[in-house]
Structure formats: structure tokens, C-alpha cells
């Protein structure tokens, strides 16, 4: 070894076989590393599949918004040309919407996009459901009839496949080509029929009319040339009026604005909703006052978690102190009492609080019996914030006591003795010597209790009533009842962010190294 290093004073240190020492060391350690990785691999996979990926998926869902663009592609494309957003857009947008809705209705996708947009503007859902039935009954058969009257070949599937097989014609009639392809797809995929045996839908003729009337036809196909000349004398209708006839809300610029605002594939909309804001024509604005709930709910969640954390410190500190300073035998017995709640179901404990706290419950009965509270004014202890705070303090108390206890156990009694021998009174010795050393335990307990409290669900759900619920209850509602997963994901992401920020602040102020769990 010394020989090698002596020979190559400037170069890397070499092992006995002349290879660099670092490489040799890495090789020697590789087997160990692989073995370690294999040992944790099952758990790693488990966590990845059941925990990390779902969380990543949820975070993704909070901004993901492809459904509008995927379901209403023609509408969104046509809206690019919509200039005056104070008024409903022109014919082109409604033409796109007509075909989009027809296709979506055939594939039964129109209700999904309706539900999605309904989160942003109430009523859209039913409008879309109604339109799903309505677009098939539009008066666009007017065009079908006129084309087939002009030449019966237009009703023939073979004519169409012939025309649409020619790329020059496809380029000349883009909307028609798109509509025809869509119709073929609908017939085959949605209805499981043979296009050759079916009547071609009205919207294909509608597109053909729009192409020929809009751009004319300068190609060599005789059938098309005839049709192009004839369309100028065709009777026509406004598809916009058709929508108005269906429901005049379709002409509401706000509705069309909502579709436009939520057309991008990724949207901050869910996050804005989660902080009581909304996307609108004027950019980001506050929600109307009667729809602002989330900021209040976040504030309440934080506030109540802090109160619960505080009461846990106040109640848990003396207990932990006692446990840490009693002889082992007695403190073990008391420790079982502390741990006892852990061995009981959370639901049972919460339900027990219902029995105790309700107006005809044990606590109120006792208070009335000893005369502290008049019978006709029993205390409201449950189904409000008080109930949530009482029940959650009880449930989370062990999470405060255990880290406190384990930290206090490591504080040798000689410190307090030393302080007393130096002339400190009992209180000074506690406050200046013992307490500062127990702060890591308080820190650990507070982080544990606060983070558990901020995401708590079942207890506030059961005893919180209307005023004592947490943001998590709202998230659960959006996950399981309103099915607005995007909003639930956004709320959850914000909650996660808040916890991480608080953790960071805590680290800056107290220092995470000072947190001891044992």
C-alpha cells in the first residue's frame, strides 16, 4: 500500500492490484448494497404501488383537465376565433358543439363532461344531459333532404366512401371528411353496426353544406360541383338558433366562457376553487361570497389542530413528568393506562364521547344534578367545535405523552439536583433546567399531534356536527359523494403543502434535530 502511494504521489490512491482504491472499494461494497436493496425491495415495491403512485396520481388529478378538450375538440378549436366574450360566440362554435355533443352522446360521454363543468357552473350537468338527447332531433335533416333531393346518390354509402377515398376532396372538404369519419366510427364502435347498411346521419350533410357554402368547390368531381352550385339556393338554418330552441341557456356567454376557460388540458381551476377563487373572463377572481367555504375551513382546521395540540401539551406534560419520575414498577402500570386507548377501536372511543357529551348525556346530567347548569340550558358539548376538540384531545393525547415520556426519561435527576444544590428553588430548577431539556419531547409530540390532527377525519365526522368539521371531511365528501376528485386532490395537495411548510418553519425555529422520539 505504502509502496503504491509512494510511486504515484499525485494520482489516486491505488489498491494492491493497481486498480484505483475507490473502484476497488465500490466493488467490494456493491454486493452489500445489492443485498440491502433486495432486502428492502418487497417493501419498497409495496409502498411504491400502494402509496407513492396513488399520491402522485392524486396530485396529478388536481391539475389534470383533459376531459373538456377530449370531448369537445371542435368547440374548443372554434372558440379560438371567439373575440367578444361579452356575447355568445358565433355559428362556427355551435356547429362544432353540435358535432361534439352528437359524438359524445353516442359514446355516452356527454354526461361526464357535463359533471366536470358543473363543478364550475351549476346547471351545466343537466344542460348537457338534455343536449345529449336534443342534438339528434335538431332540424338538420333539412340539409339531408336537400342533398338527396338534388341527387339520390348522396344517400348512398358507396358515393361517400368514393368521395372520401380521394385525398384532394378530403382536403377541400375538411369538416365533411371529419364528420364522415366520425359517423363511421360512431356506427361501428358505438352502435356495432355496418355503415353500409345505415342511413348517413344529418350532421354529415350539415358539414357538407357548411363546407360547400363556406368555401365552394373548385375540383373536378361532377357530383360535388353540382352540389356546390346548388347550395347557394338551399334553405338554411342557424345551428345557434337550434341550441337556443333546445335551451336558451346555451346562448348564455357565461356558459360558453366556462367551457372556454376550462378547455386547457391542465388547469389551476381546482386549486383556485380550493382557496375560494375562480377562473373567469377577467382572470382570477374571488368566488361569490355564498360559495366561499374552503379558506374558512382551512383556517378552522389549523386553528382547531393548534388548540388540540395545546391542550395535549397542557394535559400530557404533567402526566409524562409523573411517569418519568415514578419508580419503574408503578410507572409501567400507569403507562398501560396511557396506552389503553390505543387498544380500543377509534370508533368505539368516539362513540363513547357521544354518550358522554350529548345534551342528555352523562356530563350534562352530572352538571345539572350538582346544580351548575340549569336543566333547560344544558351545555352543547357535541356536534360543534367543543365536541371535536374534547374527543380529539383525548384520542391524540398518547401521541403527546409517549415522546414526552421517552425524552423525560433521558433527563438524569442529577440536573435538577445540581440546580437545587446551586441554590435554585424547585420552580426555578424546573423552569430553567428541566423544562428546556424536555423541549425536544414537546417538539416531537406537537409535530405528531398537529400533523395527525390536521388530517383527522373520523372523529370530526362523528362528533363535529356542522361547525366542528375539518377540511378532511370536505375532501372525503368530494371523493365519495360529489365525485369531484380533482377538487379533492387540490384540497389534499394544499393540506400536504401546509403541513410541509409548517414542518419547515418548525425546523427553522426549533430545529428538527431537537426532536426526539426516544
Amino acid at each position, binding site marked *: 500500500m505504502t509502496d503504491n502511494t509512494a510511486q504515484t504521489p499525485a494520482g489516486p490512491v491505488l489498491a494492491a492490484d493497481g486498480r484505483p482504491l475507490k473502484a476497488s472499494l465500490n466493488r467490494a461494497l456493491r454486493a452489500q448494497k445489492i443485498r440491502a436493496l433486495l432486502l428492502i425491495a418487497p417493501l419498497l415495491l409495496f409502498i411504491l404501488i400502494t402509496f407513492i403512485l396513488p399520491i402522485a396520481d392524486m396530485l396529478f388529478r388536481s391539475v389534470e383537465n383533459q376531459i373538456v378538450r377530449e370531448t369537445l375538440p371542435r368547440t374548443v378549436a372554434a372558440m379560438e376565433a371567439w373575440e367578444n366574450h361579452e356575447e355568445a360566440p358565433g355559428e362556427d362554435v355551435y356547429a362544432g358543439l353540435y358535432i361534439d355533443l352528437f359524438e359524445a352522446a353516442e359514446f355516452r360521454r356527454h354526461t361526464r363532461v357535463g359533471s366536470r363543468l358543473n363543478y364550475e357552473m351549476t346547471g351545466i350537468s343537466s344542460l348537457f344531459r338534455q343536449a345529449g338527447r336534443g342534438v339528434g332531433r335538431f332540424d338538420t335533416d333539412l340539409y339531408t333532404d336537400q342533398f338527396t333531393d338534388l341527387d339520390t346518390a348522396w344517400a348512398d354509402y358507396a358515393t361517400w366512401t368514393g368521395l372520401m377515398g380521394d385525398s384532394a376532396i378530403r382536403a377541400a372538404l375538411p369538416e365533411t371528411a371529419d364528420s364522415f369519419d366520425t359517423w363511421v366510427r360512431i356506427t361501428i364502435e358505438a352502435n356495432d353496426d355496418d355503415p353500409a347498411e345505415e342511413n348517413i346521419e344529418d350532421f354529415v350533410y350539415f358539414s357538407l353544406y357548411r363546407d360547400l357554402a363556406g368555401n365552394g368547390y373548385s375540383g373536378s368531381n361532377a357530383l360535388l360541383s353540382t352540389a356546390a352550385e346548388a347550395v347557394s339556393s338551399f334553405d338554411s338554418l342557424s345551428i345557434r338558433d337550434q341550441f337556443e330552441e333546445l335551451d336558451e341557456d346555451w346562448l348564455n356567454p357565461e356558459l360558453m366562457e366556462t367551457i372556454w376557460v376550462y378547455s386547457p388540458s391542465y388547469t389551476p381551476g381546482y386549486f383556485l376553487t380550493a382557496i375560494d377563487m375562480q377562473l373567469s373572463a377577467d382572470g382570477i377572481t374571488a368566488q361569490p361570497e355564498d360559495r366561499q367555504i374552503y379558506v374558512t375551513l382551512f383556517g378552522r382546521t389549523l386553528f382547531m389542530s393548534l388548540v388540540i395540540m395545546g391542550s395535549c401539551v397542557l394535559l400530557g406534560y404533567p402526566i409524562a413528568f409523573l411517569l418519568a419520575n415514578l419508580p419503574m414498577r408503578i410507572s409501567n402500570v400507569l403507562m398501560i393506562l396511557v396506552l389503553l386507548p390505543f387498544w380500543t377501536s377509534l370508533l368505539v372511543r368516539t362513540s363513547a364521547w357521544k354518550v358522554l357529551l350529548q345534551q342528555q348525556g352523562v356530563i350534562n346530567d352530572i352538571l345539572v344534578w350538582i346544580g351548575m347548569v340549569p336543566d333547560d340550558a344544558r351545555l352543547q358539548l357535541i356536534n360543534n367545535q367543543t365536541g371535536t376538540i374534547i374527543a380529539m384531545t383525548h384520542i391524540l393525547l398518547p401521541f403527546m405523552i409517549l415522546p414526552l415520556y421517552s425524552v423525560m426519561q433521558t433527563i*438524569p435527576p*442529577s*440536573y435538577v*439536583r*445540581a*440546580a*437545587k*444544590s*446551586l*441554590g*435554585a*428553588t*424547585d420552580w*426555578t*430548577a424546573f423552569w*430553567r*433546567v428541566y423544562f*428546556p*431539556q424536555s423541549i425536544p419531547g414537546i417538539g416531537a409530540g406537537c409535530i405528531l399531534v398537529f400533523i395527525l390532527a390536521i388530517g383527522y377525519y373520523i372523529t370530526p365526522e362523528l362528533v363535529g356536527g356542522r361547525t366542528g368539521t375539518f377540511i378532511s371531511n370536505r375532501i372525503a365528501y368530494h371523493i365519495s359523494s360529489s365525485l369531484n376528485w380533482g377538487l379533492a386532490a387540490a384540497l389534499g395537495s394544499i393540506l400536504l403543502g401546509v403541513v410541509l411548510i409548517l414542518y419547515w418553519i418548525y425546523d427553522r425555529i426549533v430545529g428538527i434535530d431537537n426532536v426526539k422520539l426516544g
Partner: protein
Amino acid sequence: MNASSGSENFVVFDRVQKSYDGETLVVKDLNLSVGKGEFLTMLGPSGSGKTTCLMMLAGFETATHGEILLGGQPINNIPPHKRGIGMVFQNYALFPHMTVAENLAFPLQVRNMSKSDQEAKVKRALDMVQMGDFGGRRPAQLSGGQQQRIALARALVFEPELVLMDEPLGALDKQLREHMQFEITNLAHNLGITTVYVTHDQTEALTMSDRVAVFDDGRIQQLAPPDELYEAPSNSFVAQFIGENNTLMGTVSKIDGDRAEVRLDDGEIIDTKPVNVSKVGERTLVSIRPERVEFNKERMTPGAHTIKAEVLEFIYMGDIYRTRLRVAGNEDFIIKTRNAPDQRRLQPGEQIEIGWRAEDCRALDA
């Protein structure tokens, strides 16, 4: 200080008893006075009650019976923080969340001393232990020896008249421990403070103390200056606990003033000084220090009894030779001889005669 508390009786334990469980006594009938300025060491094996005595003096334990007096005043009912006794703990008990200077200022702060006085005293105390530059450090940043010095300075900074030390050097390595022994005694003597020191290390006790109280089984077995303790142990426990010691069992065969002959169990006769034996026929444990055994015939007292011994092992230890012998059936009989040019090295298997001066060989209780 009133008349009853002369400088001989600064700290007095008067018939003190202590029991933790109401069944056994940890401290049994303790009577002890410590003079002002004296360095007294409580020495004993663990569980002998020495630390309990110290804790009673400091006020962290209450005596079950009896009185403890400090400067003539009974202190049984005075809480620890009003006793004004400095204390150095086994693991120093420096407050980890305070700097060295804050640790030292703590006793001054709780006495509401002015900031400038505090600073002056802290500085003086730090200088006293040669740690003047370390005021801003945290205890965790100091070595064991440095922490020890700070703990000492903290116990002295508020100028107590009495300082208690509970095995303060137990956690240090040998070399540092010897150095600190010297420093502590110097400091204590220079400042003229009374010190009660608890240890289980006999070397520490012998080198540091004015007087040593040897504890065993809740009683003081012997209270004497170190040399007396070593050379004239008053019972077999002290003889065996202090220093290295050879023991032989036998029966007193003749007593003649301060001479007694003891017949060992294998029939050989030796000369002893009777300490705890009074009549012929009594069983006795004879104790002799390894360095007082002689095997060179020329240096022995003429006419004294000698006994046969067989060399089992010779160990070279540098400054001394340590030789293990078989004497009267005892295979752990050790003799120590100084490494000198004329000193002979005994060979294993050699048959020799050993002897000693009668006054070095003490016939104690069996």
C-alpha cells in the same frame, strides 16, 4: 458560628439512620464530625451507604433518624437550595442547554447577584480552574476533564463553605484522574473549604484526603488518616479493602503484650501484632502487606519466626517485582520487591523462607 460548633465540628452526623423501605437500614447509626477546612473522604464498596450519607448532607434524602448539623445548626428541615452547599456530581450535571459561563452564572443568578458581580465571579472561577477561554462553549464541546473542571468551578463559584463531591473523577481515564486528584486537593486546601468526597477508589481516597471514613454495611468501619488506614487497619474488612493484602488463617497460641504467636492451620508458627484478638485459642485472620514480606535472610530480625514458601510465579512490573507464593496452603500470597540492582529475581519452583517484622503482621478478627 456559636460555641458548640468549633472548627472541629463543622459538619456533624449525630446517630443518623436511613432506611428506604422501612425494613432494612442503609445507614446504621452514623456518627461523624468533619472539621472546618478538612478534606474527608467516604470510601466504600457500592451499596455501603456512603452516597446516601452525602445525599442526606446535601438535602436530597432525609434522615430516618438522627440529626445532621452544619456549623452547629440542625439542617434536617432545610431544603437543599437553602443549605448553601456546593456539589459536584458523578457525571458533572452541567446543564447542556447553557454555555459554560451561563452554567457558572446560574447559582449567582438565583441569588439575584448583579450582572457585573456575576461576570467578575464567573471569570475568577474560570481562571481558577484554568478554563478562562471556554466561557462561550457548550458542555458537550468540552472533554471529560474540562467538564470536570467546569463542574468544580460551578460548585465553588458561589463560595460555599462546604463542597460535596460524588465520585467526580469516576468517568475520567487514569492519567487525567491522577492529575485532577492533585488539582482538586490543591484547590480545596488553597481556598480553605471543607470537602466531603465520596469514592470507591482507594487510591483516590488515600492520595487526596486528610481523613478517610471507610464504609461497609451502613457503618463506618474505620475513620483515620490515610497512612494509618493503610498501615494499621483496625479490622479485616479495612485491611482487605485498602491496598493489596495477604491473609492467612490461624489460631492464637500465645499473647505477650503487643506480640502474639499464631499457629497457622498447617502447624507453622508466625509472629503477629494482636489487634482484634485478646485471648489464646481465638481464631484470627492474619494480614500482612506484600511489600513488608522479606525473604532475604540477612535483612530479617534475628530470632523471628520464618515460614516456608514455594515460588509459583514471578511477574516483572518495571518498578517492582511481584512474586506469587504458596504459603501455608494459600496460593495467592503475593510479595512485592523493589527493582534494585542488588535485588534477586525469584525463580518459579524455588523453595524459600519468608519472614516479617511482628508489628507489620496484624492479627485481626476472623
